[in-house]
């Protein structure tokens, strides 16, 4: 029976990056991906590198805003990672960090921005409030009704089609084994580690391996993967949608978001403008039941709403065509913070999912690998620990 220090479940960004950081620290790593590398949300998201508190974190009001601000130290760590990632992975990832603007159109949004700015500064994120006049100079492409914006110099975007494959290649260079078309079908604790059974396609033969530690990096499917180890992980699949315009000459160097509405906007290296921001798509049904494993269905009214917001922020978009809309499913926790750490009831079982999975995926991976190999992390990640959902696993503990 083959044996590995770590089994990583999921070949998305967090999974491939974790395989890389684990292998780099000298662990023998097996990664199991039941589809293809980067085939779901990690490759389908819009590639924002956003480090300001987002609309979805702000919308609950000031008391909640304080809680969500607990993500900010992780954001600061992620900024450093992204700044050096291309040289670390020896690959062009189309990373641009030329600044991001969170826009306020309404008076309520202006108030929100001011409150957010104070909160961020208290956590060491140096966002800066810009007036309409200042914005005309910095971002002349903005619509006239933008009143104010919060600027953060480190924001930007990267190409989701390139980042995960680059991590996968780097992980392989360090000896990690990445299996695609490979589903983990059984996981049980044995001694100080685990026994795992993998089903490889094509052929469907079952392979049994011995594992030291397990990392669940299954994204939207983390709850499903958790049940293999008799664990409940509160990660909920959320179907989203994005749109992309035809290519046009470079005119939009910044990442744009709205303070009080679901909008993210950027121009990618090829010249297309990507429009998203968390508008929903809808689960397809299989045999009458919503099926979150299938690619969700785009909803016309949501796309229209999203694009209307985009055109309001950047009126020049009206001269372009929408080429394509697409959908993907992300995993979120109910407090919107990531699940990052070891499950207390199940020693040797680690989780890294949830939250802003693209922006923070490399950070989750670096930190969880550090935790798995050294049993501690330099940055405190205890507030993201699965321990905060202890109550639902006290009955489920596998030991």
């Amino acid at each position: 029976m083959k044996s590995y220090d770590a089994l990583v479940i999921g070949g998305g960004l967090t999974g491939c990056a974790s395989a890389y950081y684990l292998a780099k620290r000298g662990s023998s790593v097996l990664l199991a991906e039941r589809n293809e590398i980067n085939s779901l949300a990690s490759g389908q998201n819009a590639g924002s590198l956003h480090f300001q508190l987002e609309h979805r974190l702000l919308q609950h009001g000031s008391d909640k805003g304080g809680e969500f601000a607990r993500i900010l130290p992780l954001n600061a760590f992620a900024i450093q990672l992204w700044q050096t990632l291309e040289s670390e992975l020896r690959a062009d990832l189309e990373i641009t960090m030329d600044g991001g603007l969170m826009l306020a159109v309404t008076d309520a949004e202006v108030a929100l921005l001011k409150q957010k700015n104070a909160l961020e500064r208290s956590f060491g994120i140096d966002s800066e409030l810009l007036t309409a006049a200042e914005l005309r100079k910095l971002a002349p492409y903005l619509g006239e009704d933008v009143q104010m914006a919060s600027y953060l110099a480190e924001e930007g975007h990267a190409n989701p089609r390139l980042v995960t494959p680059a991590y996968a290649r780097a992980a392989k260079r360090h000896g990690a084994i990445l299996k695609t078309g490979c589903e983990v079908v059984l996981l049980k604790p044995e001694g100080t580690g685990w026994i795992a059974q993998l089903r490889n396609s094509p052929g469907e033969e079952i392979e049994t391996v011995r594992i030291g530690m397990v990392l669940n990096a299954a994204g939207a499917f983390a709850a499903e993967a958790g049940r293999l180890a008799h664990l409940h992980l509160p990660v909920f699949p959320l179907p989203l949608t994005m749109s992309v315009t035809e290519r046009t000459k470079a005119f939009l160097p910044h990442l744009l978001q709205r303070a009080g509405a679901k909008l993210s906007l950027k121009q990618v290296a090829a010249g297309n403008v990507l429009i998203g921001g968390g508008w929903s798509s809808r689960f397809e049904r299989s045999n009458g039941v919503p099926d979150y494993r299938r690619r969700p269905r785009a909803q016309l009214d949501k796309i229209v709403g999203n694009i209307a917001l985009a055109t309001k922020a950047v009126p020049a978009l009206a001269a372009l065509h929408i080429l394509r809309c697409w959908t993907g499913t992300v995993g979120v926790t109910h407090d919107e913070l990531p699940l990052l750490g070891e499950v207390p009831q199940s020693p040797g079982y680690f989780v890294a999912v949830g939250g802003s999975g693209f922006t923070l995926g490399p950070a989750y991976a670096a930190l969880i690998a550090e935790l798995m190999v050294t049993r501690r992390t330099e940055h405190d990640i205890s507030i993201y620990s699965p321990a905060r959902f202890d109550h639902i696993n006290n009955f489920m503990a596998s030991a």
Partner: protein
Amino acid sequence: MTQIPESRAYDVVIVGAGPAGLAAAEVLAGLGASVAIIDEQARAGGQIMRQPPRSFIIRRWLPGGLYGALKALLRRVETQEVTWLFSTTVLGIEPAEAASGFEISTLSGNTLGSVKAKRVLVAAGCHERPVPFPGSLLPGVMGAGALQGWLKGQQMLAGETVLFSGTHPFMLLVASQMIAAGASVKAVAFAQSRRDFLFGVLRRPLILLTHWRVFLTAAHSLWRIRRAGTRIFFRHRVNAAEGSAQLSEVSLTPVDHRGSGTAGAEDKRFTVDRLGLCYGFQVSSELARQAGAKVRWLEAAGGWIVDHSAAMESSLSGLYVAGEITGMAGADASRHEGTLAGLGMASSLSLNGIGKLSRVGARARRGLAREKRFAAYLNRLSALPPGLLGAMATEDSILCRCEKVTCKTVREILATHPEVTSPNALKLLSRVGMGFCQGRLCYANAAASLIAAGRVSPENLQPFEARWPVRPVPVSAIPATISDGRCT
């Protein structure tokens, strides 16, 4: 602030005013159903009957026995009670989530719209299959069907001196039509051998009886081509299309029975201003796929063809399909399938008077069986020889014309990413299929690269995802429904 206007409701919405759509409309309107036909073109008839503008006065439009039944169908339906929505593109079909029925999203000019229907027929036809080779994007390199479209729809010769090359006998028809209209056709070059054509017929001698009209047309085309001094080559492929800003020269290279062969001393060069290509057709099934219908990959039949019942209903209840998207079989098969789809929808809508039409159905079924036998012969005959794509594509040939992705880029990505086993994964890494056509043109060639590299078998291929909008939509057509910046 504009809003998407309130949508009108019909018993049946038909997408595509070609032979299939027209035949279905004839049955349904005849039984009193409310029918709307949507087509991107300005007039009915589809690609096969591309009608010239109404203001044209043409003495003998579309002469020849091949078009007789189709022209009669067109004239009958044009006088029926149906709603025509011309110059209108369908962007998507949404099955209603709770009730039965569909909402069809449309783009007309710069206006988004929608119509509702209890049943939908998708009869969206097909387009020519492009192949990558040096100079394939040079102005003057066209599909044979595009050359014919100018002739039919505008009564215009798109070029003065023409060379045809490909695998499909359709080139003979277009060559003869262009000669009759005054063009100088230098040559028609097939990748197959003369024997392939003869043996194909000898294997199915009955088709000479059932399709004498087609063979008579082919013989007439050949006679006209020969008389004009046009040369016919077998076992030749295009080596390169050349010219500075515009096509001026085409070279042909001899090939073996697999379609392989490298350029050399035996190359033949022609000075022409148009190159008409025909390597078969690809079906336009993306709308049916977007709606949720099951499809199957059959390359020789036109790519992702839509599964259907005997009544032409797809796997998605209430969504019917007819014509080329069920597998390339020509205009007469499309007409018969349209009739069957019309009857199927009439029956599922319990329209009065359908009993009278049992003989119409029986006749369509017999006709369809006859056409499918001929289609099997034609699709097999015109299939690409296995080595042809590999021989034609050089490193610098463009595989995806919208995103200008070369064959070399695709080959290198496959070499550095052994884990890529699907067209979608290849798309994510290479941008193949991400441009204006959304993969309609390049999918088959991207899939062929994966198959040739041993990454996937034809049985395990997956299509590029098809979603709203299946055609690009101007941002300015999207109504600003949100005025205060808030969203729900």
